[in-house]
């Protein structure tokens, strides 16, 4: 029984070559990430210092700091959260629990899927035309946060829906059978169980928002600012814009400063993720047994 299949040797070799090629691709991806990390860290580690974090921007690289951008980023993200979370969760609840398969619900769903893929700079144009000019918010934190809120809304809605969908049907049935109304069931049973999933989606959305540059440039976040923002109406800048500004300068000294800024941005991103994961785990231990 040793009749070899025709071409089997060649086919096995092709299979092995294909496998190697695919692994090479994965290796390239890994190498790219590694190189990126190494490049940033080696360029920027030198610039990191306490004075870097707490100083304001300056025309001189050696005195440039990131405090205004850091506070700007944190402030904007907070306001974005306040704006996006209630609306996003409410919309998701409607679509998942009330909307069903009605035509209106399907149109809204389709619309949200498309909005999720619209380039972020278009949201910037929307914010410029609507919030900054038409509604007269000016180039303020509020305008920036409102723009970002619209940007992350589709992500919040989609991930909240998934979290709601994951709640077992038997939970809802048990509640209805006791004579609870739809909203009582949602508020007391479904939402508490879905909250960890909702928080995860929120982390995703805000992590994206914190790295967003283009829409905020478009609505007029300034690139040279010498004070930390003090209210939602004040002009502002954010970390990615400040990094962009430094990268764009021809002087070589600003490269290191830009890399330092990137490290601060990444640190902020990581700590946001860590805080949210902690929040989610804590809720999981306490609330959902």
């Amino acid at each position: 029984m040793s009749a070899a299949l025709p071409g089997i040797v060649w086919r096995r070799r092709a299979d092995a070559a294909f496998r190697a090629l695919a692994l090479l691709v994965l290796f390239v991806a890994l190498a790219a990430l590694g190189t990126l990390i190494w490049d940033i860290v080696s360029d920027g580690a030198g610039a990191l210092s306490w004075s870097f974090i707490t100083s304001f921007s300056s025309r001189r690289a050696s005195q440039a700091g990131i405090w205004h951008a850091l506070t700007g980023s944190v402030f904007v993200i907070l306001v974005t959260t306040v704006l996006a979370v209630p609306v996003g969760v409410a919309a998701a609840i409607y679509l998942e629990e009330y909307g069903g398969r009605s035509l209106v619900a399907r149109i809204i769903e389709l619309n949200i899927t498309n909005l999720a893929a619209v380039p972020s700079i278009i949201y910037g144009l929307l914010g410029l035309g609507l919030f900054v000019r038409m509604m007269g918010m000016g180039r303020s934190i509020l305008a920036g946060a409102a723009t970002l809120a619209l940007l992350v809304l589709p992500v919040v809605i989609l991930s909240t829906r998934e979290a709601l969908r994951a709640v077992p049907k038997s939970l809802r049935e048990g509640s209805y059978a006791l004579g609870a109304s739809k909203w009582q069931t949602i508020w007391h049973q479904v939402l508490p169980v879905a909250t960890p999933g909702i928080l995860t989606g929120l982390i995703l959305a805000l992590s994206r928002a914190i790295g967003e540059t283009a829409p905020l440039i478009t609505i007029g976040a300034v690139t040279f600012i010498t004070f930390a923002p003090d209210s939602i109406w004040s002009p502002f800048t954010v970390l990615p814009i400040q990094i962009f500004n430094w990268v764009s300068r021809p002087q070589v000294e600003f490269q290191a400063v830009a890399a330092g800024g990137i490290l601060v941005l990444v640190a902020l991103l990581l700590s946001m993720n860590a805080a949210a994961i902690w929040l989610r785990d804590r809720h999981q231990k306490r609330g959902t047994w």
Partner: protein
Amino acid sequence: MKRVEFLIEWGLFGCALLSIGTTIGIILVLTIETVSFLRQVPIADFLFGTEWTPLFATPRFGVLPLVAGTMLVSAIAMLVALPMGLLSAVYLSEYADERLRRAVKPVLEILAGVPTVVYGYFALLFVTPLLQAVAPTLAGFNALSPGLVMGIMILPLVSSLSEDAMRGVPRGLREGSYALGATKMQTSLRVVVPAAFSGITAAFILAVSRAIGETMIVAIAAGQQPRLTADPRVPVETMTAYIVQVSLGDTPQGTLEYRTIFAVGMLLFIGTFGLNLVSTWLRERYREEYA
């Protein structure tokens, strides 16, 4: 009690309608300014003109150089992201064991999550000098460097969407192929990928849309010289980078220059929205095939 329930439902519905409001808002804002723009610039000049110099003394408003810049960088990005992304997806879906998958997935997720300014920095200050060492004719600002980096950034998107599509192919199809003595490569390339074709195509289209809409990598590394060219070694300007350039300046509201960013934005929006619709339609059709 019933009243309260009724009000709550309508409140939730209102929030859901807000998303429609966003789309309407985008269309309205873009249309109003574009219409104003087109009152002063004939649409044929805009769409077919080959010189884009709106800030010069004798302004020209032909958008083709910006479109060309966008296409060039996106094409380079797709040359990287599509084949590599698909290969990665095939490997992860058909070959890789659980351990490898668990090691690779986070890497891809991180690559997808890196803020685009960081990629821009990387492209300008690392990749470009590196490439210049190999090809000295490469200009400091060019299309090649941001194109390559953008490709790496979009690779995870192609990989994960294609992998989802392939995972949707029923196991019976693969088993039939193996039972006939086909190797894994033959089964993957000749059975699974074709079966997942519309899902994979949807992923590709979404990737193109993402590349076209990308802003910061090109704003940092591609340059600000609109040029109608296919040469990846010279500076170009994309549609998105132009919008950033004007926004950084002091263009007052209501001027023609101000309106150009909305006209360009409108073009960008129509292009990506159209691509996204096709992608969604393809994905729905794919789901029907195998649901």
